[in-house]
């Protein structure tokens, strides 16, 4: 059964009985989330645009080093680092929080308590990211991967994040629905894991730094777990909610979903040290990480089976649902990224792919093809509900999807292949290093082309969101215009003799 114009249907009370009451309750929940979630989405998208520009500049500099060479604050190291921090902390984290707030309220079946407090947290968070990215561009980077923001930005970020985490837990405690859905497990775990990771890494690397190779161990424990214990749970929570919700079919196996959650919780935390294969660490530490990485096959396969069997017979619905399109693309990419990650963790593979563009491709497969695509899908579902407006342009939705889908495929596939060849050449002592660099140049130009496609997709999405917001404010704008016009007419009448 297909309900048409259903994005708004659930928001429009009017039917009598339980269904009408339910619609009213949903409308109340969506209305309570409107301001804070919109703040997180809008500021997240602003950072996405900034991050995209920085990514393009960094990408062009890789094959044309003279590009913008006269600006000392736009050196490759500054731009690349600023790109990473804008997209991770500015874009991805903020969209994650927005989606988490909405999902938690919907699944707890209560309106967001004190939404103003979450909005204040958002303002502080953006202040923190602005100070952090500005500091990076001014040369204040800490030079610690994924923790490059200068120390003076960290307390602001930590304070606002703590406020958000506490508020998520408060919402959970006040829930009207006592039974938990698997998405809530993932969301709760993510909001608890992130401050633990961020706080521990800050103390052990910046506030009271540990010595020697332990720094590298802590650094990669943090950097890898940010992906696996912050972004991945929120991405999976969204997939587990939106696929059943959009197609109108419960998840294939709830037991399997719970098994996936607990096995992720058990194994992911150990993975980070596989980034240090060949490094001067005790071999057992790296071996444990490799074993845990291989054990990740359990949650990955359970999730893949569950998503696939839920979707069987419903793949055709992707033609009509932008949410489903993005989410299924993201879910498929999660399986691919995880399998690539397991393979890359093995010593024999890492010896080739480490220090090559293969790692960069893998990071984008996980962070973009999986996580970002799922977040786009979630926003396509949430925004019409909280603004009570339909998407203004289907053409822009299609442009967004095909721009980013083709862009990320054109990015990941050639870069993975090129990275592998690059690694093989680097390991061959008869090939000069400069020849290996020359070999990468055409591939890096292809990467810039992929970046342009991604940028076009982002621009289409931002225009559509802006248009949606204009429509949302239309009823507020018209009375103002009428008042102003009326005043003008009165003034004009007063001037008449």
């Amino acid at each position: 059964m297909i309900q048409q114009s259903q994005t708004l249907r659930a928001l429009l009370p009017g039917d009598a009985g339980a269904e009408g009451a339910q619609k009213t309750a949903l409308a109340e929940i969506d209305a309570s989330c409107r301001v804070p979630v919109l703040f997180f989405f809008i500021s997240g998208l602003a950072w996405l645009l900034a991050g995209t520009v920085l990514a393009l500049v960094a990408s062009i500099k890789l094959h044309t080093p003279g590009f913008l060479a006269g600006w000392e604050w736009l050196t490759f190291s500054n731009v690349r680092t600023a790109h990473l921090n804008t997209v991770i902390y500015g874009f991805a984290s903020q969209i994650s929080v927005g989606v988490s707030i909405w999902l938690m309220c919907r699944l707890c079946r209560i309106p967001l308590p004190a939404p103003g407090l979450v909005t204040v947290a958002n303002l502080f968070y953006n202040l923190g990211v602005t100070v952090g990215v500005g500091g990076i561009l001014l040369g204040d980077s800490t030079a610690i991967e994924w923790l490059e923001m200068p120390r003076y930005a960290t307390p602001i970020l930590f304070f606002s994040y703590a406020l958000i985490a506490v508020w998520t837990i408060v919402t959970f405690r006040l829930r009207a629905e006592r039974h938990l859905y698997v998405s809530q497990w993932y969301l709760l775990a993510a909001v608890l894991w992130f401050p633990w990771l961020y706080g521990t890494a800050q103390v052990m690397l910046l506030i009271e730094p540990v010595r020697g190779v332990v720094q590298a161990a802590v650094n990669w424990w943090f950097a890898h777990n940010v992906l696996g214990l912050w972004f991945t749970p929120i991405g999976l929570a969204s997939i587990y909610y939106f696929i059943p919700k959009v197609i109108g079919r419960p998840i294939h196996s709830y037991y399997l979903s719970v098994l996936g959650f607990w096995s992720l919780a058990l194994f992911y935390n150990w993975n980070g040290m596989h980034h240090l294969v060949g490094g001067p660490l005790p071999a057992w530490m790296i071996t444990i990480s490799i074993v845990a990485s291989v054990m990740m096959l359990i949650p990955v396969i359970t999730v893949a089976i569950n998503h696939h069997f839920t979707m069987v017979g419903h793949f055709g619905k992707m033609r009509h649902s932008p949410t489903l399109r993005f989410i299924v693309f993201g879910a498929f990419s999660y399986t691919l990224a995880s399998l690539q990650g397991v393979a890359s963790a093995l010593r024999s593979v890492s010896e080739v792919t480490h220090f090559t563009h293969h790692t960069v491709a893998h990071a984008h497969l996980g962070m973009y093809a999986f996580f970002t695509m799922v977040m786009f899908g979630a926003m396509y579902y949430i925004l019409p509900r909280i603004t009570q407006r339909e998407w203004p342009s289907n053409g822009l939705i299609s442009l967004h999807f095909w721009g980013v889908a083709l862009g990320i495929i054109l990015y990941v596939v050639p870069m993975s292949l090129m990275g592998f060849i690059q690694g093989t050449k680097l390991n061959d002592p008869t090939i000069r290093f400069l020849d290996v660099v020359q070999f990468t140049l055409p591939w890096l130009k292809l990467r810039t082309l992929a970046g342009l496609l991604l940028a076009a997709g982002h621009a289409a999405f931002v225009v559509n969101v802006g248009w949606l917001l204009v429509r949302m404010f239309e009823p507020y704008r018209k009375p103002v215009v009428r008042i102003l016009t009326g005043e003008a007419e009165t003034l004009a009448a007063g001037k008449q003799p």
Partner: protein
Amino acid sequence: MPVIAFILLGSVVLLPVVALWALRWAAAAGQFRCPDKAALLPFDESEPVGVETDCILGGNRR
């Protein structure tokens, strides 16, 4: 050093304890008892099972 010891202790002791407590609470609260009920939580009377909720592309919009 005391700060690091505190954090390491927290990581090694506190987190597994919290995880075990969460698992025990979930089992005691019956969270694993009715998987069929839990799987239906995204749905309600206004958006029940069998109803698509995001069909806006491909000319099917009314």
